[in-house]
């Protein structure tokens, strides 16, 4: 199986502090992967590097069948290549309606001129309707997204990611601040998404990771400490000592 995202040997330091240290990582085209690790292990920095927000000091990142290098691409360009990212805090555009948020994310030409003359076709509106339905916001389309509850905002953001139709989805702590039933829903959604695309989930909550039932990568001090099934990594002595309680 050829990898969709291939990260090899990347390092980055901030003011002398090595946030990522010779990290290599790869993920297949339709795979669900959880990344865990203690605070400061470099999880967020890793996402920043893949999405182009941070430029690594060394190493290579390639994406897709043709193995395009992501280095030197702008964030927007990388997003158009098909990498979507969900932030910890829900970042939806609170001043705009749910529908506008979704239309914004819908896959379409992104240049100013194209956007200026773009008008939603019936198929676009239908797609928005479907997406909204999928995340349970079908009857909220005309509401301002700022009025939604925290959980609904999370859902809206996930729907926006789906609208982008990314081939790789990076999700940062999706379950933070969710109620148990919302967590349940999120889990099943992520699992079903991963059938058609690659999904990388960064999470603290072990219960949540367990329910995802997927390969786990443990990061520590900017490098991969262990990789395998959750049971495998939780038996790993190193993992236990740095992450699970040092005892």
């Amino acid at each position: 199986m050829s990898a969709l995202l291939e990260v090899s040997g990347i390092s980055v330091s901030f003011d002398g502090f090595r946030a990522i240290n010779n990290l290599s990582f790869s993920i297949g085209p339709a795979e669900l992967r959880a990344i865990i690790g203690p605070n400061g292990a470099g999880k967020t920095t890793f996402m920043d590097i893949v999405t182009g927000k941070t430029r690594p000091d060394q190493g290579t990142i390639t994406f897709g069948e043709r193995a395009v290098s992501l280095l030197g691409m702008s964030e927007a360009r990388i997003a158009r290549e098909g990498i979507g990212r969900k932030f910890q805090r829900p970042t939806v555009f609170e001043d705009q309606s749910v529908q506008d948020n979704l239309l914004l994310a819908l896959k379409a030409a992104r240049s100013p001129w194209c956007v200026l003359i773009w008008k939603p076709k019936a198929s676009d509106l239908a797609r928005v309707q479907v997406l909204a339905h999928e995340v349970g916001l079908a009857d909220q389309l005309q509401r301002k997204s700022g009025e939604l509850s925290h959980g609904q905002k999370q859902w809206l953001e996930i729907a926006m990611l789906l609208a982008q139709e990314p081939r790789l989805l990076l999700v940062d702590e999706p379950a933070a601040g969710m109620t148990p039933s919302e967590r349940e829903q999120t889990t099943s959604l992520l699992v079903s998404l991963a059938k058609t695309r690659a999904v990388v989930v960064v999470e603290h909550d072990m219960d949540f990771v367990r329910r995802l039932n997927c390969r786990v990568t443990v990061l520590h001090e900017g490098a991969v400490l262990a990789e395998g099934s959750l049971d495998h990594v939780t038996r790993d002595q190193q993992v236990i000592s740095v992450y699970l309680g040092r005892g």
Partner: protein
Amino acid sequence: MLETSGLTLHYGGSQILHGIDFVAKPGEITCIMGPNGVGKTSFLKALAGTHPRSGGSVTMNGAALPLCRPQDMARRGLSSVPQGRMIFPLLTVRENLETAFAVLPKAEHQIPDEVFTLFPILKDFLSRRGGDLSGGQQQQLAIARALIMRPKVLLLDEPTEGIQPSVIQQIGHVLEYLKAKGDMAIILVEQYFEFAYGLADQVYVFRRGAVSFSGKVSSFDKAVLRAAVSV
């Protein structure tokens, strides 16, 4: 004595703490345990006033505390050693220690010798910049800085995180010394089980923003407690 009842806290729309009842007594180390992301740090922030609580009450020595700003909490005798140490990187070690004078009367604006007895290394580094110290040294500085404030309640958030064993041991001794002195309540958030178990008198285990169980450490079997805390 510090006491909370029904304390809640929100970040924007999301509720992080769901009604915490909590007691910490002077001369005791009260330890808060639990995995990442269960609201331990948020609880300390609510106590220190860095993030306002959204409900519930806090009393100190019997007097109810209104919602107040961190500087007012500091003046009431609460000092904290936050996660990540948060020393002032561009100030020298001496200046870092001197920031604590803000809550003391002018006549007492000097660094007590006790600090250097507890943390001898700081004496050698007085004129170095805080940011140039190693993690362990920064941690000692952060604790020393908090002690100069002569707190009634001392909050420590993961003081052993990323610290070499020798310094962890030293921090342990300091905490035992402070406990023996008996003039402050020590609240310790810790994931290093052995360390916490060795020091704590009382334990609170957090799970998803609520206290899952609590009690005297001596009343729990060690293996059971560890299993409860781990995952």
